[in-house]
């Protein structure tokens, strides 16, 4: 599942488009690459999903009928999409103050903060996820701390729970939320808040009426990236979630590798992709609606 289209992070849409000459030919190599390694496999995926049986002998919509006919499948899809919503909401809640702090800090503090924000991107997801296993495990840091402080009688079950998974995903995806937010918030004219204050608005009113609406494009971009990354985070979902919870990426993996049911795996891949695209397009619509007036 790498089929999420890149969201538009560049902000202001270029108003005047220069006349197009022959420069477009420069994009040909990339276009060819995409055609061979992205579009073709995608079409193949669609084709495979249209086989009626696991042995791939006849065509039919049987796989889709099977998927939507079983509430178990719908529950897996639903819990995956919901997981994305939870992770995105929490990442926004923690990421926004961090981005705000960054834009209000001096240059030295900014360098320190940006290092902290970017650092997770510089380590492998596997490493980051294993770190969370160390933190959340029965004999992990959190449990040891709770036990030694006497706050818990016995080790709590943190690993292989949805709460643990959400916490891990929030940390792992944080840069994807914070970086677009920083970009948008840094562009805000500081005079706007001064003007708001001089006109008699308190800090909360200024935030709700000025800062928040004007940072909507960054919020939309950050949510888009975080959501897409969270629902498709196969490694973190598998390692921190364990076998207790099933999300779409592992479900597809099981069907392909363990059960060799390629047509069904392909069908649920397509369903998943379309569902995620639907959510992403919803975000994009919000973003476009906010962008119209934001970039004066």
């Amino acid at each position, binding site marked *: 599942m790498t089929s999420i289209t890149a969201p538009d992070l560049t902000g202001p849409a270029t108003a005047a488009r220069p006349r197009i000459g022959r420069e477009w030919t420069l994009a040909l190599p990339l276009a060819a690459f995409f055609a061979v390694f992205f579009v073709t496999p995608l079409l193949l995926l669609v084709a495979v999903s249209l086989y009626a049986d696991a042995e791939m002998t006849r065509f039919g919509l049987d796989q889709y009928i099977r998927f939507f006919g079983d509430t178990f499948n719908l529950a897996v899809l639903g819990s995956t999409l919901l997981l994305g919503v939870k992770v995105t909401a929490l990442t926004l809640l923690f990421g926004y103050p961090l981005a705000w702090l960054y834009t209000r800090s001096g240059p030295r503090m900014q360098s320190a903060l940006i290092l902290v924000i970017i650092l997770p991107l510089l380590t492998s997801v596997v490493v980051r996820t294993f770190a969370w296993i160390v933190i959340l495990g029965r004999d992990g840091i959190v449990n040891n701390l709770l036990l030694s402080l006497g706050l818990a009688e016995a080790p709590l079950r943190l690993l292989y729970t949805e709460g643990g998974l959400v916490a891990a995903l929030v940390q792992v995806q944080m840069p994807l939320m914070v970086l677009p937010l920083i970009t948008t918030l840094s562009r805000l*004219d500081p*005079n*706007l808040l*001064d*003007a*708001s*204050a*001089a*006109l*008699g*608005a*308190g800090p909360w*009113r200024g935030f709700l*009426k*000025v800062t928040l*609406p*004007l940072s909507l494009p960054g919020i939309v971009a950050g949510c888009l990236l975080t959501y897409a990354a969270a629902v498709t985070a196969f490694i973190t979902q598998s390692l921190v979630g364990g076998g207790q919870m099933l999300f779409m990426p592992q479900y597809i993996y099981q069907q392909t590798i363990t059960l060799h049911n390629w047509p069904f795996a392909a069908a649920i891949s397509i369903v998943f992709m379309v569902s995620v695209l639907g959510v992403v397009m919803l975000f994009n619509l919000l973003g476009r609606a906010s962008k119209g*007036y*934001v*970039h*004066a």
Partner: protein
Amino acid sequence: MVALHSARSHLQSSPQAAAEATAKPAGVAVTLDGITHRFGASTAVDNVTLEIKAGELVALLGPSGCGKTTLLRILAGFQAQTLGRVVIGDRVVDSLPPAGRGVGIVFQNYALFPHMTVAQNVAYGLEARGAARDAVRARVEAMLGLVKLDAMRDRFPKQLSGGQQQRVALARALAIQPSILLLDEPFAALDKNLRLDMQIEIKQLQRRFGITTIMVTHDQEEALSMADRIAVLSRGRLEQFGTPEDVYDRPGTLFVNGFVGSANQLRGRVVRASGSVAEVALEAGTVLSAVIPDAALAAGDPAILCVRPENLRLATEAAPQQIAGTVDLALPLGPVVVYEVRTADGGQVKVTEPRVAGAALRTPGTPVRLQPVSPQTCRAFAVPAGA
């Protein structure tokens, strides 16, 4: 909080709000008392004291980095001064946030809320102060009428021209009935023709409202034409505070003499000083009488004598107190001709003379005699350290 409450009660007396938008509330006096502001080791504002009368339009004039914008931000409450007091009306406002000071501010880039319409921008301050909806609507209409933007009420700022944006910023600032209006380089972003129109418009509004107005500018013409009094600042210090005539005709310091208008600076030495008048022997070979504003010059001191080009005339007959030289260059500028005259010691002096249509210019090399129109137009200052 007094101003806030009175503003609110005023707003809620809704039907009169529109009519009162054009009424004349009394402005308040503003005192900056020994204001000093330091950023780390550097001093941006150095012990500035200004007493501004109610209803006055005062320009803070100076080159960039002179501390005028810092002073404005301190007055508005965006920055806390290191030392000194700010008094608005009869209240010391040092501990009050911007909202409690009753100031309306127009920023250099106008700082209009880009996601709000013109009407929403103007209504922002009224809504923040909890005015009733009808009162807000009436007041917004009145303010937009005042700045002639009724037709633009539903436009967004980016759909407006620079002059229109400035009008919106002005309407937004005046809507909350501030007791002081602060303008930060208000005309810098406008082109030259529009600038004059807006200057006239703002001056008229200011007169009509009788609102105490403090304007930051680096443009001396703007300050001279608009302000009742000008505070000239340099490197954080107040150089002179006076009427435009004072500042232009009777500059108190060498900096003011050079920064406001143009001046010939002639080096020399004081030969006699009594009271506020001195005789200065110039290196150009003449002794001229001059006013000494700070009276700190004594006989024998080196001095710089300033005289404006328009206060010199080209004499036809020899007389005392004349500087001899030869014409170096003639620049006809329409109404006047500027002559660059080379003196005996190799210095250069500018002199302007009204240009008569058809009259021939003095050609380079012509010997001329320069004479100040009166000793009062010559001012001698001590030579600053390092000059």
